[in-house]
């Protein structure tokens, strides 16, 4: 197997990152990677929990350089951590939070505020480590349907191939010198690829911050020079428009995690004067297609990626995708390189870039002691200004429990974005003759409950 460089930056003074307005050079980054690598314990699995994107990148690079595999779950509930300990008993947590709540052995990230403070200070010749393409770089997880998170192995070679394909699709000429700011976490597959691996593999500089409120996004962009790229989501883009937030000049805006309506894409492009590229991908496949949503319906697959359709089920293979992967969405190929996206298959829900299935959520709800029967459903009545954001409800049979204690128990098991709103206690579930619970029946029952128990609804 051949070695692929850890970073594409080929000069010691090339910028790898921005921490606020402070630039970090490739030489400084690699010295920090060496310092951390020397502190890592002997175990083979690292749960990289650093919320600062620069520290995350140093942690990832040090793990790669020492042959360790990064563990990247989509959520960090006590239940998920318990499963991860069973999956990789030697896993430790690299964190930049001194009060990190995860029940794992912990290594606290130490910042080196000056180059001289680094153990292998100035004078070390500049040399970028080569990482074997076949090396297992990360396990990313999907929620699965039986309660245990499902691991997906990612080799270094496939990850690099994926973001190098992304580079060829971005409508910018050369990423070297660009500052890439993300509103998504580094641990999420999209954030991992487009806000960490993309800058490391294209010679761009990642921004350490993960701004949240519209004013934060503007301030973080203003701290770095042009050219700037914003990697974000429909929720954040909608918030920027709703808040009428002014932004510094942008070269490119990237969106993923949920479908972006074309009118929103056009509004974003006209307000911020930059092209908006929407990316399609999944945890299993990684990023695999893109489109300029304001101008086109069709998605263009990344080089080498092919689709196969049988019935309504679609799978992807080729290019950076190691083996054939069944997709969770309904895709209609229109030629060898393009497809139309027709939404998710029924059981899946996607909220705030976190994906789950109703089967998984139902499993956890029904596993709570005292719950005798329960079901989640997708609400279709949301009219909040972040419209388009899916919200869930649930009907629960639990004669001895109240809603608050069920929510409390659920919070230990599932990510809070999936908590049902409302959670209605009922005497029995409205099962049809075959024992099934059609989603429309559940919504109708909830609407009825809204009349009978108006205090549960706005």
């Amino acid at each position, binding site marked *: 197997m051949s070695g692929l460089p850890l970073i594409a930056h080929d000069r010691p003074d090339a910028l790898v990152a921005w921490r606020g307005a402070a630039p970090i050079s490739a030489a400084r980054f690699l010295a920090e990677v060496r310092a951390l690598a020397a502190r890592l314990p002997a175990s083979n699995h690292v749960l990289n929990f650093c919320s600062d994107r620069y520290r995350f990148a140093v942690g990832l690079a040090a793990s790669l350089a020492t042959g360790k595999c990064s563990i990247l779950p989509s959520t960090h509930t006590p239940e998920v951590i318990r499963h991860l300990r069973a999956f990789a008993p030697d896993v430790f947590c690299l964190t930049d939070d001194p009060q990190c709540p995860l029940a794992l052995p912990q290594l606290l990230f130490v910042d080196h505020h000056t180059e001289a403070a680094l153990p292998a200070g100035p004078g070390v010749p500049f040399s970028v480590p080569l990482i074997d393409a076949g090396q297992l770089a990360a396990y990313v997880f999907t929620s699965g349907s039986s309660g245990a998170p499902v691991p997906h192995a990612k080799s270094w070679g496939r990850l690099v191939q994926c973001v190098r394909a992304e580079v060829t699709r971005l409508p910018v000429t050369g990423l070297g010198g660009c500052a890439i700011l993300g509103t998504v976490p580094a641990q999420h597959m999209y954030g991992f690829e487009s806000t960490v691996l993309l800058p490391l593999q294209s010679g761009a500089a990642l921004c350490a911050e993960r701004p949240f*409120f519209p004013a*934060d996004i503007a301030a973080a962009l203003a701290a770095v020079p042009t050219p700037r790229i914003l990697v974000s989501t429909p929720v954040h883009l909608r918030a920027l428009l709703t808040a009428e937030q002014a932004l510094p000049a942008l070269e490119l805006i990237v969106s993923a995690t949920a479908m972006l309506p074309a009118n929103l894409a056009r509004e974003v492009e006209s307000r911020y004067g930059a092209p908006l590229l929407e990316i399609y991908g999944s945890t299993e496949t990684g990023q695999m297609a893109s489109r300029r949503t304001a101008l086109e319906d069709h998605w263009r697959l990344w080089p080498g990626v092919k689709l196969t359709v049988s019935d309504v089920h679609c799978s992807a293979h080729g290019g950076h995708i190691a083996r054939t992967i069944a997709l969770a969405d309904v895709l209609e190929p229109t030629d060898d390189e393009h497809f139309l996206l027709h939404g998710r298959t029924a059981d899946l829900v996607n909220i705030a870039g976190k994906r789950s299935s109703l089967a998984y959520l139902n499993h956890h709800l029904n596993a709570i002691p005292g719950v005798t029967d329960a079901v989640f459903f997708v609400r279709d009545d949301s009219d909040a200004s972040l419209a388009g954001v899916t919200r869930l409800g649930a009907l629960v049979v639990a004669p001895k429990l109240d809603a608050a204690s069920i929510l409390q128990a659920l919070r230990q098991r599932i990510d809070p974005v999936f908590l049902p709103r409302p959670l209605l206690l009922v005497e029995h579930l409205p099962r049809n003759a075959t024992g099934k619970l059609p989603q429309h029946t559940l919504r109708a029952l909830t609407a009825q409950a809204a009349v009978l128990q108006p205090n549960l609804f706005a």
Partner: protein
Amino acid sequence: MSEQALPILTPPVDTLLLEREIAQLIVKGLNLPMQPDEIDPEAPLYGEGLGLDSIDILEIALIVSKQYGIQLRADNQENTRIFRSLRQFAQYVAEQRVK
């Protein structure tokens, strides 16, 4: 009596009115399954308590930006206090509002 000498035990009437107004905006804006006066003014807004998540907090940021001209910032050292409860949040809005 100096205001600094004693902790404020009961908020002034105008803060209570603002508190009620914000509760109405939150319940309506977020589609919460409750009446505005059911929000415990002392319970945490985020996580436990009212159980809001990050999308809700973003929505609240948009609401207070539109209604009161306040721009919330994640790096604001006071955020822990601001989101500690509806009452603390109303007090922050009262201090910072520009409209």
